[in-house]
């Protein structure tokens, strides 16, 4: 440990800590462009200059290690002057097109200009022209004139995605960031370059011009795209819903979690939220026997329960199959377990459907299991592998032979795991098929009743990722139409069946869950928000155990 003093604040930090990091720990933010804690340090932008006593010249805070007894000043006249000079240089050839720049409002040139520069331009020369609005990959647009050559994106492609697409060519005021001739910025993580570009040089093709960032609200959540469970912020547009075609969720951004995704997320997850505002959303409980008819939740619950009881009384409890989903939260699954297994006494409950085409994976973030809560479902024991009931495949086979008479299916599009005719034969042979999920699919099309479930951005709950880390999603936008959280749907059905589900909030469910399920026992609800809690102290399961085979 070494002791340093920064702006009069004395702190102790591990040896090797840089001045910029030390200042952060002392609660002082030194401006930076090129420095990013997840990338190598290059010290090229010079905005982080600070005064260090007994050093003749200003030093870059990002590169300089803090040493014993060092006294640093981040706010002296000399430092402020230097910052202003750096800003002036950075803006010499900058096009100043903020009014049409998508980064405006979250641009570090704007922020630091307001905080540290506020100079009048002294430039009368013509600005150097470079390429603008250049599509450099499937997700990223480049405006070279706005680039300040901090090289963050280059280092990201070298060090994180390891795909080396970007480089800085030529020099001086002709230097320009470009992909290698003949290639595109096209890798599984390319969207992160947009996040880390401190200016409007790299912008998001998907998000561009959809809304100004100051209209966005932010809610902490977890990406449901695979079993990694990258921590994210959901950026939603509550104020101007008529913009961007009425879509409420504008974009997803990675949220730092050192134990899961650090600063990053994959493109599939980043752009994979469109189902939330898609036309395929189910808006109301619907009866699809003969003519399609919308119903109230009360009607739907009572009709479904009547039919279910009928099936059970004639053919027995073994004639009903329940297919839950690893897309559902721990809370959803716990209430499902309470209702179907403990309440109705059903035996055939499963949740795993092995996809016909195995999901892509890599050795960084992307997992083959494209579900956020497979581990949670296993720990809750709602799979055939954990109990003694039929697997989904066995259920479909039994349904075809009419050994099963009713199927309750959550979220799954069974066509992803089985041949279309297998699913069709099985489902059409049933007396009752209920589908519950946020969006219609080929399975819901075969159901007698379709119930609208809230999407992941519309509810609160927790997922357990592949490494058995329990992490929370929060309600960002209100459920569309009549939809509600899966566990609330089960609660309505349970009420009809006089089964007690005494929970009002997701938190109540969670408390009951931790009291009842050994694997989760003692987990504090309050501690889940933010970074989540690892059930096994960060010990990851071997992948073979966690991937839906």
């Amino acid at each position, binding site marked *: 440990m070494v002791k340093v003093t920064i702006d009069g604040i004395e702190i102790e930090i591990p040896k090797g800590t840089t001045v910029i990091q030390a200042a952060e720990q002392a609660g002082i933010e030194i401006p930076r462009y090129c420095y990013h804690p997840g990338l190598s340090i290059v010290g090229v932008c010079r905005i982080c200059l600070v005064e260090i006593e007994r050093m003749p010249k200003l030093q870059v805070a990002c590169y300089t290690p803090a040493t014993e007894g060092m006294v640093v000043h981040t706010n002296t006249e000399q430092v402020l002057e230097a910052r202003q000079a750096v800003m002036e240089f950075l803006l010499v050839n900058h096009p100043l097109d903020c009014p049409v720049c998508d980064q405006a409002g979250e641009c570090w040139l704007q922020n630091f200009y307001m905080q540290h520069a506020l100079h009048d331009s002294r430039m009368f020369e013509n600005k150097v022209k470079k390429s603008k609005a250049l599509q450099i990959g499937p997700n990223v647009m480049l405006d070279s004139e706005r680039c300040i050559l901090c090289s963050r994106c280059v280092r990201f492609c070298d060090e994180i995605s390891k795909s080396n697409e*970007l*480089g800085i*060519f030529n020099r001086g005021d002709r230097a320009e960031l470009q992909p*290698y001739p003949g290639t595109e910025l096209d890798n599984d993580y390319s969207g992160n370059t947009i996040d880390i570009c401190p200016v409007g040089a790299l912008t998001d093709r998907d998000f561009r011009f959809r809304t100004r960032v100051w209209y966005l609200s932010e809610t902490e959540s977890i990406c449901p795209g695979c079993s990694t469970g990258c921590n994210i912020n959901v950026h939603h547009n509550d104020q101007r819903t008529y913009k961007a075609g009425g879509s409420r969720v504008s974009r997803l951004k990675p949220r730092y979690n050192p134990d899961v995704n650090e600063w990053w997320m994959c493109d599939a997850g980043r752009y994979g939220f469109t189902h939330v505002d898609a036309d395929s959303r189910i808006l109301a409980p619907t009866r699809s026997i003969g003519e399609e008819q919308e119903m109230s939740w009360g009607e739907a619950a009572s009709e479904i329960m009547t039919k279910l009881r009928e099936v059970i009384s004639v053919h027995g409890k073994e004639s009903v199959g329940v297919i839950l989903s690893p897309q559902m939260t721990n809370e959803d699954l716990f209430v499902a377990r309470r209702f179907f297994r403990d309440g109705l006494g059903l035996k055939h409950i499963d949740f795993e459907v092995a996809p016909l085409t195995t999901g892509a994976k890599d050795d960084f973030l992307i997992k083959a299991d494209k579900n956020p809560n497979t581990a949670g479902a296993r720990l809750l024991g709602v799979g055939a592998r954990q109990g003694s009931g039929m697997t989904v495949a066995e259920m479909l086979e039994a349904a075809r032979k009419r050994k099963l008479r009713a199927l309750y299916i959550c979220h799954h599009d069974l066509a992803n795991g089985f041949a279309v005719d297998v699913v069709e034969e099985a489902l059409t042979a049933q007396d009752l098929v209920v589908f519950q999920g946020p969006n219609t699919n080929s399975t819901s099309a075969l159901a007698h009743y379709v119930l609208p479930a809230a999407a992941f951005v519309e509810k609160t709950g927790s997922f357990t990722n592949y490494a058995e880390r329990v992490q929370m999603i929060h309600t960002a936008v209100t459920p569309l139409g009549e939809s509600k959280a899966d566990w609330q749907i089960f609660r309505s059905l349970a009420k009809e069946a006089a089964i007690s589900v005494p929970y009002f909030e997701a938190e109540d469910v969670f408390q009951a869950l931790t009291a009842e399920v050994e694997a989760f026992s003692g987990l504090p609800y309050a501690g889940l928000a933010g970074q989540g809690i690892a059930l096994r102290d960060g010990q990851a399961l071997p992948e073979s155990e966690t991937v839906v085979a």
Partner: protein
Amino acid sequence: MSKVAFSQESLSEFERIVAQYPERRAAMLPTLYLAEKEFGHISPEVEVYVGELLQVPAIKVREVLTFYTLFASKPRGKLHFQVCRGISCDLRGCTKIIEHLQEKLNLNSEETSADLAYTLSEVECLGACETAPMMQLNDDYHGDLTTETVDLILDEKK
């Protein structure tokens, strides 16, 4: 795999160079220099080849290559005239020298003749102000230029 390769001679020279550095990529500049000698200019294929030799992605070679204006990434003539445009040469009449060369070689500045005989460039100060106006022809400096001495040089080299 790249489509070009060093001759045996250049390859052993490369091995000698690379052995002098703690890291292969550190030998970037001398390797580019060697490659330019062997291939005349650093084409995209040569870029890839140099990257393979140094075990870095070709894009890293390109970054260095484009940073230095002294490397040729396009074909250059056998005779490369680089006329200094520095302030001393300007005061001492380099414009006349340049115009004269343009006429004689039938080229604009920064152009290469179709037969790859000549390239004419205007460059920043070459650090030989005492002989202004001056130019560099391939590896040699020629100073105190007049249109007549330029003609003499041209006759000699043709």
